[in-house]
């Protein structure tokens, strides 16, 4: 159980719904058939939506003015199924006897788009890419909590990204034992920083709440707690496979901050095949 408290500074998303948290919430409630997200192309990256989605998330936070010091920003990128666009294209090319495209060579690892963004924005901090077997939220938060304690880190940007493909759908069906889960191109990101005030978890009550202003509240991630398979078995399959936990957290944080949802609240990171994690949010 992790109890480092992280403050949510900024949130962003992009998917078939557009780039608003409210749009994402509506999509989850009534998924549309459209599966592609509109993200601008990134020079040098081809054939896959993965790098553009990641870059759009980083650009969104850098342009927002919420990143205080690019040299002290850590980035943690996570995906369950990874860059299926690049991997599948390269594999098919090889089997078809086509010479590999050198662009796919470096694009085949998630570091490369992080490196591109690093050059654009002068990011010299910690960068890590994760693979996970579920909704990814716990892996992102656990890593963010660890990194937020380091002396060279002031803020941590966590990004979850997934692509839609037939192979992804087949894998999801296999991993979730046939539960229907829609995959679409989408990314969600949160800019986090370690709580600088009283530690919410140590206080253990609402006494440690910190309010941003008169209309919205600062939202904290208080706790990541493991769950057994039995705890998660009654939750239905949800449509943002691989990134649902992070999406749910962003939606809950948005609603809590506006007073539309009671706090504390829990969101869940379900592992493929059962079990997972519960994440507690508070104001």
């Amino acid at each position, binding site marked *: 159980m992790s109890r480092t408290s992280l403050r949510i500074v900024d949130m962003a998303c992009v998917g078939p719904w557009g780039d608003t948290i409210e749009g994402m919430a509506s999509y989850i409630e009534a998924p549309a058939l459209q599966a592609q997200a509109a993200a601008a192309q990134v020079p040098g990256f081809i054939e896959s939506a993965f790098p553009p989605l990641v870059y759009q998330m980083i650009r969104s936070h850098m342009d927002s003015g919420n990143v205080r010091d690019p040299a002290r920003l850590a980035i943690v990128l996570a995906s369950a*199924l*990874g860059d299926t666009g690049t991997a*599948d294209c390269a594999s098919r090319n090889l089997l078809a*006897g086509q*010479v590999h495209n050198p662009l796919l*060579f470096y694009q085949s690892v998630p570091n490369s788009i992080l*490196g591109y963004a690093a050059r654009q924005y002068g*990011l010299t901090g910690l960068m890590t890419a994760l693979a996970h077997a579920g909704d990814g939220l716990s892996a992102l938060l656990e890593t963010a909590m660890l990194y937020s*304690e380091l002396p060279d880190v002031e803020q941590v940007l966590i990004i979850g990204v997934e692509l839609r493909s037939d192979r992804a759908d087949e894998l999801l069906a296999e991993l979730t034992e046939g539960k229907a889960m829609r995959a679409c191109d989408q990314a969600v990101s949160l800019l986090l920083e370690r709580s600088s005030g009283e530690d919410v978890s140590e206080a253990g009550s609402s006494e440690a709440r910190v309010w941003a202003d008169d209309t919205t509240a600062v939202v904290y991630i208080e706790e990541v707690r493991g*769950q057994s398979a039995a705890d998660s078995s009654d939750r239905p399959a949800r449509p943002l496979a691989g990134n649902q936990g992070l999406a749910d957290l962003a939606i809950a944080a948005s609603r809590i901050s506006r007073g539309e949802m009671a706090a504390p609240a829990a969101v869940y990171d379900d592992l493929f095949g059962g079990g997972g994690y519960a994440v507690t949010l508070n104001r």
Partner: protein
Amino acid sequence: MSRVVITGIGMMVPGGFGEAAARSTVLAGVHQFRPVTRFDTTPFRGKAAAESAFGGSLLELGLRLTQEALDSAGLADLSGGSLVLGIQGDYNGLQQYWRARMTGEHGHPSQQTVPVVEFLPAYHLQTIAERYGMSPDGKRLCLNNACIASSNALGVGYELIRQGKAGTVLCGGYSLVTEEMFAKFDSGRAFAQDGRVRAFSANRSGMLLGDGGAMLVLEELEHARRRGALIRAELLGWGLSCDAYHVCQPHPDGAGMALAIERALRSAGLQPDQLDYIHAHGTGTPLNDRSETAAIKQALGDAAYRTPISSTKSVTGHILEGTGALETALSVLAMKEGVLPPTVGYEGQDASCDLDYVPNEPRRARLRKVVNLNASFGGNNTALVLGHPEEVAG
């Protein structure tokens, strides 16, 4: 803050499993490069790699290394522990998936059948965790950030223990030469043209791939002492950085790697002249070795000229995601044996690489503090500082 020690190691080099294979190849300076036999290299410019005799799948390699690490640590399972891997998935699974769809063939005579799900790195994480009895409370993290993946995993494991979030963490990574990865590096014209890795040498022409990896049991010092575990090394600190320079080329001045080294030394509470050996990333590419040398000079100052440096990739090839874990395990072995592993295939000094690279022959040395360096695409760099077990006191 808690101290972190290494109490168990399972490792494989191209020459085989365990310390004996590493001693007779890496420490002795016997390179393992041969013409590739695992697939047809006719379509490619490159022809050589350091393949092992291991005939199992990538996941089976991970499971075997896990078992050997736990045996080495005297642990029966991972109950109460955490797991941090740094790997990519098994590309044979992906290739077989697409071959079946494109040609109707479901197998390949020279390949073990691998389900496509094993292409997912986290499937390895879950399989190892479940096979070895991890509880839901144990941390499970899988890093897939290319050639720093398993050294970053060790850094994360270190932080889990140092910050009091875990008592025992199994960390590591592994890789096998596959046609898919071979094709990618070949397309990038990254391979050595003469079938040898000649790291830091004037005539170096590139890198080569190899089989291998390591799993290491990290443990909080007092936890290890209470159960009477054999302490093999102390993980004293680590650093992670980004060049902010290029998608796939290292910073020519080594700025990012220097920053990782400086962060690691600060984390370990050491000065540059306290290092006895630098286990370099040393891929053998013209750009990497020049950049890495510049980084070492920038971070260590005059001490760079007094500190021996070598590349074990000149024997093993590049183990990709597994390289950081394997080279950490080899560093521990080098400290234990009191031997500097040589940079083999070294044939002459490059003006931009003018440090002591322990050329061609192993050297006896008293190794008490060692730093292991790794770098990856995206300009990411790691440095891990290790201490000899005899230095663990107090």
